[in-house]
């Protein structure tokens, strides 16, 4: 019944190339809409979008099974959608509605969906990395073959949490896939100024962790690298790191005017739009027609429109939700 991936792992959620395109289109639509809604004051709190980085989320999560784990950061919408979170429930969460994935108590920086293996976005830089390692520990000790993926930015590599967690995963040979999205910036800072060794791949040698660079704007390349890595992770040889080179189109948070970015840099990276690249590849390879893909984009837009209108109409959380889930009754 279930599709099998190269390494024999059931991969119900393993996406075909066209499905990957659809998923990227969904993230693109979702994030564009969120940006607009935030500007208009419809979404409260802090919001960090992943526009421009869609191929990493889909390239990675498109190869995972539903019960593989993902732990992510403040910039986690794309990862959650790619891993299968319901766009409606996610949008409702961003609107702080009772129908949201977390009943409006988490918000953009804390969306989680354990039913899809999503252990949550996280607002503390670096904090989700040890959490992902812990999920890998569970998988190993419970004799499961789940892989645990930690998504994080290149800026968080300078946190002690990365250092300690990477080392731990290595000595315990845990099935952890570290995915570093190197989008060049951490907030307003050019990350290459913050280490003498800007290559995260190179820094992995300190942990004895095999690391590879990949074009993070090429979803097929990411998928392939991930497939390769997953097999090894599951075989018990320990963690692997992928450094995906990509670019953050928007400001660090919505509202950041990004005066610190050179114009040419923005232009060059936008010219390598991961959706445009993949569209080209699919059409040239004959895997889809331009019409199919246009339909996919419209389909994604429809899903997002529906998510927004549902979220708008949804009820606020019950006032008693404020007091629930602090301590579970023993």
């Amino acid at each position, binding site marked *: 019944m279930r599709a099998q991936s190269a390494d024999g792992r059931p991969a119900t959620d393993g996406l075909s190339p066209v499905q990957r395109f659809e998923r990227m289109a969904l993230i693109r639509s979702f994030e564009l809409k969120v940006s607009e809604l935030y500007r208009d004051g419809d979404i409260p709190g802090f919001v960090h979008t992943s526009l421009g980085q869609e191929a990493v989320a889909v390239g990675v999560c498109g190869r995972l099974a539903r019960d593989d784990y993902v732990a992510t950061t403040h910039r986690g919408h794309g990862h959650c959608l790619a891993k299968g979170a319901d766009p409606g429930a996610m949008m409702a969460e961003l609107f702080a509605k009772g129908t949201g994935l977390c009943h409006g108590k988490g918000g953009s920086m804390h969306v989680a969906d354990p039913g899809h293996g999503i252990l949550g976005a996280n607002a503390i830089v670096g904090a989700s990395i040890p959490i992902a390692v812990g999920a890998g520990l*569970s998988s190993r000790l419970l004799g499961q073959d789940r892989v645990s993926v930690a998504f994080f930015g290149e800026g968080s590599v300078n946190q002690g949490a990365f250092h300690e967690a990477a*080392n731990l995963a290595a000595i315990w040979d845990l099935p952890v896939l570290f995915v570093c999205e190197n989008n060049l910036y951490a907030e307003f800072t050019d990350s290459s100024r913050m280490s003498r060794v800007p290559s995260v791949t190179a820094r992995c040698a300190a942990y004895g962790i095999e690391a590879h660079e990949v074009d993070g704007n090429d979803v097929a390349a990411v998928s392939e690298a991930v497939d390769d890595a997953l097999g090894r992770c599951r075989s018990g040889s320990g963690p692997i790191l992928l450094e995906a080179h990509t670019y953050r189109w928007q400001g660090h948070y919505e509202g950041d005017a990004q005066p610190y970015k050179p114009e040419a840099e923005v232009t060059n990276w936008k010219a390598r739009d991961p959706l445009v690249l993949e569209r080209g590849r699919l059409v040239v390879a004959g895997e889809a027609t331009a019409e199919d893909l246009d339909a996919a984009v419209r389909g994604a837009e429809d899903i997002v429109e529906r998510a927004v209108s549902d979220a708008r109409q949804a009820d606020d959380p019950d006032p008693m939700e404020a007091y629930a889930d602090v301590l579970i009754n023993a």
Partner: protein
Amino acid sequence: MSSSTPETVAAATRYLDAITQGLADALAEDEHVVLIGIDVGAGGGIFAATRGLHERFGPERVLDTPISEMGYVGAAVGAAMTGLRPIVEIMFMDFVTVCLDPIVNQAAKLPYMTAGALSVPIVFRTQTGAGRSAGAQHSQSLEVMFAHVPGLKVVMPATVTDAHDLLLDSVRDPNPVLFIENRRLYGMRGELDQDPLPLGRARIARAGDEVTVVTWGQSLRECLAAADRSEVSLEVLDLRSLVPLDIETVLESVSRTGRLLVVHEAVQDFGAGAEIAARVADELFDELLTPVRRLGAPAVPMPFSPLLERSLLPNADAIAEAATSLRKEG
């Protein structure tokens, strides 16, 4: 001792042995329980609390870690989110300063932020205990930091039976629990109860009718010694946990005695005693015969000198004196 516990423990057990036994019982009764910490494995722990467990349960259940508290405590939280029930050791309570995030921002908040979709059944096991010249960085009782953070239980066993029973209760609890032992008590001997008092209930350690003395941790011994030698009749309550706080038992006692003294080893200023004092002074405003008094350490770091250190810790004499003076006041 808990009925589900197969092992029997000799009479007049040491507090330390009761801890070891509690750990063994927890490991034996639930295969999801794992121990994680620095030298908890083959080394048996720097206080020998985990001695024999590595041999008995194996390296997959009892895991030695590098000196990476942020990493391994964070990983333990991730493991608790995904099916294990870790007991993770922070060797000295003072070391929470290098791993506060997984406790305070992750474990305490994830169930709430995810509206209960995630739970974090974990025990953070640590110990404190001034009075042995361990110096300012190895002597702090920081329980108030955690009692103040919603989403954590805070347990401080003061007796041999509680060292065992509350530990088992903590492991069985579905919530994150900070379990704070006191190394000054490790050598103390006592009996294990056949019918343990559950976590969340204070214990009347000594009945009396003139002054209620509320305490926890190592100060209990001092309070009982004070009760022995005082002409005033002291009712000594061992709080056992700060969260949940069994304020009912405290109020019931003070409404009988009309007087309350709160005693703890932690610094008095902004300490946990203030909460109890404030609650009782508010709720029993009309019943109190005298002001609620507190006795904690003065606002200084713990000095190395045994002489200086001793002069700072609330002892039986000071407690008896405070009780006598309360009795005289009204």
